[in-house]
């Protein structure tokens, strides 16, 4: 169980270029962090580094008392701007697969469908969905399989005003139950969050 996320003196190099160095962040259960920075500053790379997909140049990432490998395998969700959805498959097939893959149950998948109002979209092919609908389908994974740490890459950008507000409520609920959120954003998050600017 992830109770805390700490980044200490973190440096990441991508393609021979040092993206950032000496980055520090400490997030306790129930806290969120809004990650800002110019395009290309390394927000996505930082999220993928926390997820363990990108190797660090220097510094440490710890998840409280939890073992890092176990925490990454079962304790975090990564919702990137690439959403991993296959255009030729139906929304239902994709949601069911990702729910099973991340350890969700049928009941939790149903709950996710209701919460993000996907029931009318489930029989459509993913290619027929709008950008906002696709994002809601991707975000449904967060509810379909409860995990403590959410790493969100521009979660709000394709959503309309109504859904930004509703997803704000989903995030607030997650924090209230002891979750942690790190979100890369350009617009302010609709929840109270620590600010971390990369490349300032």
């Amino acid at each position, binding site marked *: 169980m992830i109770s805390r996320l700490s980044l200490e003196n973190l440096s990441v190099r991508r393609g021979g270029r040092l993206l950032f160095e000496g980055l520090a962040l400490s997030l306790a259960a129930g806290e969120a962090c809004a990650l800002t920075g110019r395009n290309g500053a390394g927000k996505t790379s930082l999220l993928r580094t926390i997820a363990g*997909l990108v190797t660090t140049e220097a510094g440490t990432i710890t998840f409280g008392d939890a073992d890092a490998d176990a925490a990454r395998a079962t304790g975090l969700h990564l919702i990137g701007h690439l*959403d*991993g959805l296959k255009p030729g498959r139906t929304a239902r097939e994709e949601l069911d697969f990702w729910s099973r893959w991340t350890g969700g149950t049928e009941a939790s998948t149903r709950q996710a469908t209701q919460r993000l109002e996907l029931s009318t979209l489930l029989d459509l092919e993913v290619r027929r969905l709008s950008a906002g609908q696709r994002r809601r389908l991707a975000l449904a994974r967060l509810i379909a399989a409860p995990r403590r740490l959410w790493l969100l890459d521009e979660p709000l950008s394709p959503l309309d005003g109504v859904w930004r507000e509703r997803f704000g409520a989903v995030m607030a609920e997650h924090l209230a139950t002891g979750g942690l959120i790190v979100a890369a954003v350009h617009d302010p998050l609709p929840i109270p969050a620590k600010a971390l600017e990369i490349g300032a």
Partner: protein
Amino acid sequence: MSRAGALLAREVALAWGKGGGPLVALGFYAGTATLLPLATGPEPARLAAIATGMAWVALALAALLSLERLFERDYEDGALDLIVLSPQPLELTCAIKCLGQWIATGAPLALAAPVAAIALGAKPQLAPLILSCALIGGLAFAFTGGIGAALSLGARRGGLLTAVIVLPLFVPPVIFGGAALDAFANGLPWHAGLALLSAYAAAAVALGPLAMAAACRNALS
């Protein structure tokens, strides 16, 4: 359904899905098998002598065709990130992807192999052995092919690169399978070829996923 089962169902569905999959591979196989005799001349005696060999090489080439998308489609749309972030070892995940590839395209191609060989003039008694060789060889093609597909992740024209990486790995199964078929057709002992082919397939199934997982991690980082 378990995590592994869900992944296998997804992989088979994706390989079968739009954009051809097995139908394209079968069409390519039929095309190659028709093209080869046009170059060698139409005499039945000569054709019959090389029919099984041609069917076997065409099968290897057709297996190559559908490999390109095995990892690439998940890499391009970000699904590979999410597939890696799982309690299921990446090696097992890679093995399941290759198994899905074999079920969706290897098995249909294996069913077509005896038909193609007999159409080219091979003796009908060869059909069961051709089918066995194609099924076992298909497993070797899928699991060695996966290595090439994973290694060429992120490269432009990844399909061609995959072919260049994988063709040398296809040499042993082509030799072993061809030897078994040739020996059977000439009434010689053929078990050794089939045993070597099976051994190669077993080694590919055991070792291929290790290489694929390492290549995937490297492509993502």
